[in-house]
């Protein structure tokens, strides 16, 4: 999966937190790579609306003058010496894989037909 930030949610389908619609949840499920069923999407739509309404209150005190905290005890420039460390053997790395050919992980097609 991509390590980058997910692309934008279509804002036209969301007016506010309580405007979470099944389409928004379906889109988020796609970004999250979870093949949710229609029943799950319906249930989550209601639940997410309620949860978001309750956590929306963070914006009440998050004024521009307050800096954010990403880690509770911030460390910077954590480096180690640039020397080879212990690594897994190929066999160890493949041991838990659903499928492999002895030296590589095996997956199905990366691209679909329309691509």
């Amino acid at each position, binding site marked *: 999966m991509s390590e980058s930030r997910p692309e934008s949610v279509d804002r036209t389908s969301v007016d506010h937190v309580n405007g979470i619609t099944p389409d928004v949840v379906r889109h988020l499920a796609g970004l999250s790579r979870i093949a949710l069923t229609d029943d799950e999407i319906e249930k989550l739509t209601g639940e997410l609306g309620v949860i978001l309404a309750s956590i929306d209150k963070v914006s009440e*005190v998050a004024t521009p003058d307050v800096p954010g905290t990403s880690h509770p005890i911030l460390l910077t420039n954590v480096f180690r010496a640039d020397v080879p460390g212990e690594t897994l053997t190929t066999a160890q790395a493949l041991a838990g894989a659903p499928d492999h050919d002895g030296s590589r992980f095996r997956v199905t097609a990366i691209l679909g037909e329309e691509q």
Partner: protein
Amino acid sequence: MSLTTLTTLTAADLGRKLAAGEVSSVEVTQAHLDRIAAVDTDVHAFLHINEQALDTAAAIDKQRAGGDKLGELAGVPIAIKDVLCTIGMPSTAGSRILEGWVPPYDATVVARLRAAGLVPLGKTNMDEFAMGSSTEHSAFGPTHNPWDLDRIPGGSGGGSAAAVAAFEAPIALGSDTGGSIRQPAAVTGSVGMKPTYGGVSRYGAIALASSLDQVGPVSRTVLDAALVHDVIGGWDPRDSTSLKDEWPSFAEAARAGARQESLKGLRIGVVKELDAPGFQAGVSQRFHEALALLEGAGAEIVEVSAPNFEYAVAAYYLILPAEASSNLAKFDSVRFGLRVNPVGGGTVEDVMAATREAGFGAEVKRRVILGTYALSAGYYDAYYGSAQKVRTLIQRDFAAAFSQADVLVSPAAPTTAFKLGEKLEDPLAMYLNDVTTIPANLAGIPGMGLPMGLAPEDGLPVGIQLMAPARADDRLYKLGATLERLLEEKWGHTLLSQAPDLGPGEMFGPESGAI
């Protein structure tokens, strides 16, 4: 000494008897395996029992017989939360997506346990990927509270807490992202410590929310938690968030605390916002009795205010899902764990989506979707960004509180153990169980949960939480051990000696005397 008695001893006492040659590690380990066999069908604290346990114990006995210098806990059995990677034992984090997965490496804390001669008994149950406060979100069925099998043991580390409370293990490892060590301790009458963020390595702990997660000890006594902390703690080059501090001996702090007669000169701050009217009556009552006991021992009780704690749960449920949605991206059906091929085949992305649909439970899906939303462009600043600002405000609240008090206290959980199923369909109600414990995770400070009595209305355990500034973990062990002694002197026994019998082997005769 009978084998059933061995399971009631503390880890410190077992270590002493092992060192003195009064018992062997094989005997101690066998006693705990027997206890597990007798009660774990009902309690379900364990997901896996270590088949090598007796061999490991025999090897320790051999080392001891050969005159090797061994650590204080060598030969003592320990249970390990299933969130920690263990060579030779499946590590599932309570999820179907990792069912049967045996890691190719040990978590650093596990490697340190093994090096110190402790005997891993097995892996304990937990909410899936540590998302929950009841263990009901485990893909492998809930753990039951040893005090009342119809009730939750807390979560996510309900398995570790139940294992020590049911005398299946003297000590265990847990992990605490928003209270998963301290809240289960509160509702099972056991002890749990969340160390300072960075105080214990997370290498090999299956990550939930990396800016919040911390590994720590679970036990029946403060000293036992300290002994485990001394073994697992300290800098680890494999965890880039690990602190390079030189830590004092926490066992020494606990022993000094147990000896300490007077608390004169200690300022104990009561967080006004965590002594709330919405808490269960018996929780508030026992909390105020504990305060009176501390005051009677010479401590100065001061009220402190933390106005931004009101926003802590909201900030937590933005930060946690955001980080979890990123951390759980690794479960992609390629390198480890489950793979589900959709009907008619598909691309690797279709396989991923089908796998994650089948392999993740409802709560995991809920939080991954919520986190993906909170991180989306256009919402990132409003949600994740705001939550990070709240985090700063909560750190400032703690800084102000610790300028007035050496240690802060609150109830460790707002209620006693609730019934299995009671809050399962109401995610928000479930999230509020951690209202007392979440602030410490957001600020990275250490927190300890320990028993403070039984609620009069339901006879179930209630816990107190102690909090100290970052890096002052030793203060919690010292005060925790003092409070533990004061309470046990008042009761005339330990709290867990009042737990009901579970197994066919009689553990305790009935004891009278209300707590």
